[in-house]
């Protein structure tokens, strides 16, 4: 049974005189556990909204109007959905860069660095390979972005495993290095001389631009991001590698005693997360900007941290949470314009929800309704 249960096993209760029969509980317990994993974050979200509503009321603003605008601008019209979904793609990748290492108990918050360097790599390779057919050049650009992103965050994992360097601080500081490196290269060796007042790499040819999903105003990065989330879920939930990672994340000592390859797991999961972040950069350059420049560092990596924590590092849950957060961001402009609230309002909402989710983590296993084996106890 899962580690979230209170330590006792179900057979104990079955034998020691529960009212319910043991087989009944046997199928009920996992269901209850999943219900707990859905209900608690939802409750936390509602509590967060309630606290945020208080914040609005204190300022003399109407919470109803606020949430009405969020709905309208984030989800209410076809344009709103396209707005929301086109912001979702980079967030999916950025959240995976946090969620995958998190399954090993590592808190990596520097995905921004891998996004920036992945984008730079895609931009530079795109210029170098401009003569090749797109069918050859694009895969090389994808691979380059993923490898550089993977190396960057994989280095964080290596520093952790081999040298004991705190991965949270290392990844954050390395993100600053990545941004500085990108700025240096874009303003120096890789600068297109024609990019006068906005230093950039040379523009990609049209053949190397990734387009929109037919019929939508949303680029292909969204679909690839969803596939990446499903893939990551399958890796964690359906493979022995994922199982081993979850063991190591729960108790490194136990995992080592069992002979699990903790080092390779740490390197593999951090590198995979970094590779996904690198893909976010690839899509930013090929689908949005058309060249690599300072606009690559626009904070997706940091929003990804929030999404991964809200999704409790479950890659499947990342999909709806990323869409929700993208909807908040899509609506922040309309909220600013209609309610005269500052841009930071959305950040306040995100911050309050984040704290509510963190607090809700302490409530797992505290509600008897989610623990069928305890229903019979007084």
């Amino acid at each position: 049974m899962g580690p979230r249960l209170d330590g006792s096993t179900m057979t104990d209760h079955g034998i020691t005189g529960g009212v319910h029969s043991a087989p009944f509980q046997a199928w009920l317990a996992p269901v209850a556990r999943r219900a707990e994993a859905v209900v608690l974050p939802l409750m936390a979200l509602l509590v967060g909204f309630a606290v945020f509503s208080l914040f609005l009321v204190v300022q003399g603003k109407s919470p109803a109007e606020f949430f009405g605008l969020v709905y309208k601008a984030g989800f209410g019209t076809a344009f709103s959905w396209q707005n929301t979904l086109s912001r979702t793609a980079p967030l999916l990748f950025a959240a995976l860069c946090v969620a995958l290492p998190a399954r090993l108990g590592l808190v990596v918050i520097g995905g921004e660095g891998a996004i920036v360097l992945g984008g730079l790599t895609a931009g530079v390779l795109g210029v170098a390979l401009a003569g090749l057919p797109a069918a050859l050049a694009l895969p090389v650009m994808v691979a380059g972005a993923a490898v550089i992103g993977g190396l960057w965050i994989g280095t964080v994992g290596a520093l952790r495993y081999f040298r004991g360097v705190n991965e949270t601080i290392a990844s954050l500081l390395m993100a600053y290095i990545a941004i500085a490196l990108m700025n240096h290269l874009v303003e120096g060796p890789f600068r297109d001389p024609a990019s006068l007042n906005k230093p950039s790499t040379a523009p990609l040819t049209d053949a190397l631009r990734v387009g929109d999903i037919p019929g939508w105003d949303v680029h292909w990065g969204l679909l690839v991001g969803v596939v990446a989330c499903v893939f990551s879920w399958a890796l964690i939930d359906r493979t022995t590698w994922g199982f081993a990672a979850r063991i190591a994340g729960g108790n490194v000592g136990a995992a080592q005693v069992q002979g699990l390859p903790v080092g390779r797991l740490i390197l593999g999961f951090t590198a995979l997360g970094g590779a996904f972040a690198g893909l976010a950069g690839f899509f930013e350059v090929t689908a949005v900007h058309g060249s690599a420049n300072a606009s690559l560092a626009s904070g997706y990596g940091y929003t990804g941290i929030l999404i991964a924590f809200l999704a409790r590092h479950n890659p499947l849950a990342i999909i709806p949470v990323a869409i929700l957060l993208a909807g908040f961001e899509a609506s922040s402009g309309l909220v600013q314009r209609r309610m005269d609230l500052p841009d930071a309002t959305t950040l306040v909402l995100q911050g309050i929800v984040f704290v509510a989710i963190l607090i809700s983590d302490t409530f797992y296993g505290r509600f008897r309704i989610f623990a069928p084996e305890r229903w019979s106890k007084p």
Partner: protein
Amino acid sequence: MPMHPFTRRGFLRSGAALAGAAAVSPLSMRPAAAAGDLTVGFIYVGPKDDFGYNQAHAEGAAAIKAIEGITVVEEENVAETTDVQKTMESMINFDGASLLFPTSFGYFDPHILEVAPKYPDVRFEHSGGLWSADKHPSNVGSYFGYIGMGQYLNGVAAGHATKTKKIGFVAAKPIPQVLLNINSFLLGARSVDPSITCQVIFTGEWSMAVREAEATNALADGGADVITCHVDGPKVVMETAASRGAFLCGYHADQSPLAPDMYLTGAEWNWAQVYTDMINKTLAGEPIDNFVRGGLADGFIKMSPLGPAVSDASRAQFEATKAEIMKGGFAVIKGPLKDNAGNVIAAEGQAFAETDVTLESMDYLVEGVIGSTS
């Protein structure tokens, strides 16, 4: 910020954007949806009370709110990503905006160029871009001002105020617009005393308060006693420099409230006039030119009022130089002139007037500027 009241009315509560706007706006109590009604959207890359680039544009936006039939919608802190594309479309779809001013340089390519073809009835006016007829959509225009002239006048005031003969410049990035400002500032000072030098420090970012403060302190440590800058928000540079006892020359907007005694003058944008002209043309049904440039004489830029520390001699030369610039054809970059690596920029008798397009691809620092573009 009491001296910059950007209060926006609580308009647009109903969903029907245009009709709603006309009905709620206190300026249009007459029957709604008159032919002249126009919703104008302003988009800023940073906060609109930053004492700098964004505030200068927001002051322009505030000026046109007073025009009858105009509804202004504004959004600040909009990133140069998908974010700005969707903000433009949101203003068009939800607010009924038909004239947009996305004001940050990085909004132009690819973002405005991506969105504009989808909305041929909407006009996109961009600050700083180089619109060209054969490459860009006809519903896009770009406008900018010759603010290097303002930095030259800053330099004149600085040249009189400096005692150490060292002046300082905190710069964001070594790009043409910034390099022209640095060179102009030094050459203005050298028109007072040819022995003056200017130390420049690049922070590498448009908005990075910590590095701007460090750079300012480093300039003061090196003996610079007049400091100016070209970053998005000059507030940190101005306050830090004043606390170190250096005189200030402002940029983008009027920073004199930050340190009234130390503020000499400043090179300001005068977007209020530019925007009012554009709005009046639009309301009258006349087209706006796709490529608009202007200087001090055209009212695109203006100088902050001279501060109390400016001497009479300084004032006299400042006013004389200003009058010279107002006549038009004034050249800051003129021969004989070398860059600070010894290469000849302009031979004897050669001059680049403010309107010269080659100045928009400047890649050098002139002799007397201490610093490097790479």
